[in-house]
C-alpha cells in the first residue's frame, strides 16, 4: 500500500465530568481538533453504566503531531490520573493532509 505521512492518534477515556477541561487542555496544547464519543465501561473504579450524569464516560480521540501527543499525555498524567477515572493511549497512523494536524 502507499506510504503516507504519519501522525499520532491519542485516545483518552475519562469520566464525562472532565470532558470540558480535557478538550480545552487538548486544544491549548496544540491540537487542531478532536472527536468525542460516549462509552460505558468498567475499570479499577468499578462499572460506569452511563445511565445518569455521574456515571457517564467519554472517549476523546485526537489526531496530532508526536510532540503534541507527548504534551497531551504528560498533561493528563500530571493533572488527571491521580483523582479521576482516566485511561489514555497513543499509536501511529497514516494520514491524508498531514498539514491539517
Amino acid at each position, binding site marked *: 500500500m502507499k506510504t503516507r505521512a504519519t501522525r499520532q492518534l491519542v485516545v483518552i477515556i475519562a469520566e464525562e*465530568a472532565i470532558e470540558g477541561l480535557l478538550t480545552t487542555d487538548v486544544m491549548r496544547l496544540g491540537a487542531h481538533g478532536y472527536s468525542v464519543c460516549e462509552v460505558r465501561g468498567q475499570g479499577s*473504579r*468499578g*462499572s460506569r453504566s*452511563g*445511565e445518569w450524569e*455521574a456515571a457517564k464516560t467519554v472517549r476523546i480521540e485526537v489526531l496530532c503531531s508526536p510532540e503534541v501527543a507527548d504534551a497531551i499525555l504528560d498533561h493528563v498524567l500530571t493533572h488527571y490520573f491521580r483523582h479521576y477515572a482516566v485511561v489514555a493511549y497513543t499509536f501511529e497512523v497514516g494520514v491524508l493532509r498531514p498539514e491539517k494536524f
Partner: protein
Amino acid sequence: MAFDPVPLFFVLGFLARLARSDLKIPGQLYEALSIYLLLAIGLKGGVELAKEPFFEVAPKAGVTFLLGVLIPLVAFPILTRLGRLPRPDAASIAGHYGSVSAVTFAVALDFLRAKNVPFEAYAPLFLVLLEIPGIIVGILLARMGNLQTVRWGPLAHEVLLGKSIVLLAGGLVVGWLAGPEKIAPLEPFYFVGFKGALSLFLLEMGLVAAGQIDALKRAGVFLTVFGVVMPLISATLGFIAAAIAGLSAGGAMLLATLAASASYIAAPAAMRIAVPEANPALSIGASLVVTFPFNILVGIPLYYFVSQQIIG
C-alpha cells in the same frame, strides 16, 4: 391498604436492578424527563410567584438561604469527628447534603397535592435558593486554609449555570412573565402529565440507585447510618427555619423535605471539579443509595406527619 404508586415505581426499578434484570434506562429518556420535571416545577412556581408581593416572599427566601449555609456546617463536624473522614471527603459530603434533590421535592409536591394540603405555591423558589449555597460552603470547607487554590471563576460559572438551576430559574422567570392565563394552555403537558412523568423518572432512579450499591459498600456502615440520620437532623433544622419564616404546614413540610434531601446532580458535578481528591463513591453512596430512598419511602410521610402535628 392502597399504596401511593409513585414510590412503588422506585421500588420496582430498585428491585429490577438488584435482581440483575436487563431493564435499562435509555440515557436520553432520563435526561428528557429530568429537563421536563425541572421546567414544570419552575413554571408552576413562577406562575404563583407572579401573585405574591415581593416583601412577602423576600424574608422567607432569606431564611431558606441561611438554612442552605447551615446544614453543611452541621454535617461537616459529624463527618470528620464521628466518621473520621478526611477533610475533602467530609466537605464534599457536607456539600451534597447542604444542596437539594429536585426529584425528592417533586415527590413531596405530589404528595401534598394528592392530599389537597395547601402550601406556599412559590415553594420552587426555595428549591432554587437551596441548591447552591450548600455546594459553595462544602467547597470552602474543603479548601479552608488554602482558599487561593480555588478557581472561583469557573466554579461560579459551573454552579450558577448548571442545568438544574437554569431550568428551574428559567421556568420560574417564564412562568412569572407569562402569568397564569398564558400558561394555561401548557397545563396538559406540564402539569397534568407531571405525576406520570415523575413515576417513570422514579423507575429510572430506582435502577440508578441500585446500580450504585457498590458505591455504598465502599462508603461503609458509618455513611449508611449517616444517610438516614442526617436527613432527620436537616429536616428538624428545616422545620425550625419554617417556623421562623412563618410558613404554613404544607410549606414547612416542603422546606423540611428540601433540607433533608441530598443533591445527586449539581453537587457531584461541582465537587468533581472543585474537590477532585474527594472520593465520589462516598457521597453518592450515601446521598443516592441511602438518603434518596429513605426520603421517598419514609421521610416524606414522616415530615408530613410532623408538619401536621406542629403546625397544621
